[in-house]
């Protein structure tokens, strides 16, 4: 997890296009300036970043389902529940299921598991649009390679 670059997913563990699910690993770093302020003497992974982990996992799922032809942008978060504290050094599993493939939008049900227990969950809506430019797509392809996104498993345009 590279908090300073907002790259919160470390590895795609499983992408199942038929079942429209994804599972990803996200390891919270032991040290970060974020924990100096959140909170002094009681470091916690901020809830908004936990939501972002779920969004990024969901986003990779949508990218996979669209054959890397479209980019999901976070649009709405519904019923987000932060059920337990997440501390530095924790290894998390983010899981998401596509629950609706709309025209220009998609919705997922996502959760984060900490040691097998649900630490947080939410229903997340994305606007799904064409990549704004080739550079952006190239950046995402590079990011995909860095997290073992199974490019060979997805349909191509």
């Amino acid at each position, binding site marked *: 997890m590279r908090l300073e670059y907002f790259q919160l997913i470390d590895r795609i563990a499983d992408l199942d296009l038929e079942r429209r699910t994804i599972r990803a690993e996200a390891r919270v770093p032991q040290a970060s300036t974020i924990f100096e302020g959140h909170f002094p003497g009681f470091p916690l992974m901020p809830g908004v970043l936990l939501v972002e982990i779920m969004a990024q996992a969901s986003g990779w799922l949508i990218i996979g389902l669209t054959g890397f032809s479209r980019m999901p942008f976070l*649009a*709405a978060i519904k019923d987000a529940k932060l059920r337990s504290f997440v501390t530095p050094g924790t290894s998390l599993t983010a899981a998401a299921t596509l629950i*609706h*493939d*709309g*025209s*220009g*939008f998609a*919705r997922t049900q996502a959760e984060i598991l900490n040691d097998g227990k649900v630490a947080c969950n939410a229903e997340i*809506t994305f*606007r799904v649009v064409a990549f704004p430019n080739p550079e952006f797509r190239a950046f995402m392809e590079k990011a995909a390679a860095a997290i073992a996104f199974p490019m060979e498993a997805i349909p191509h345009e």
Partner: protein
Amino acid sequence: MSSTFDTVANIIAETCDIPRETIKPESHATDDLGIDSLDFLDVAFAIDKAFGIKMPLEQWTQEVNEGKATTEQYFVLSNLCARIDELVAAKTA
């Protein structure tokens, strides 16, 4: 038509917190009811689920942007319901 409208109006009322009695067949979703594009995603989600369809919002938006259609053709509720009925009929045909 009437049942489609009732379903759509109830979805809009619940999703967008708009009094049900103010939602009429002649209401324009944006101009009259003030539903913005983000709220309309929630409406579209609920309509897609309720009718088992996928409203082609991107196609409609493109047609409007290119001047091939007016927003009234798709977003006045009576017209929206007619489009929904067509999509349902096409699905079951």
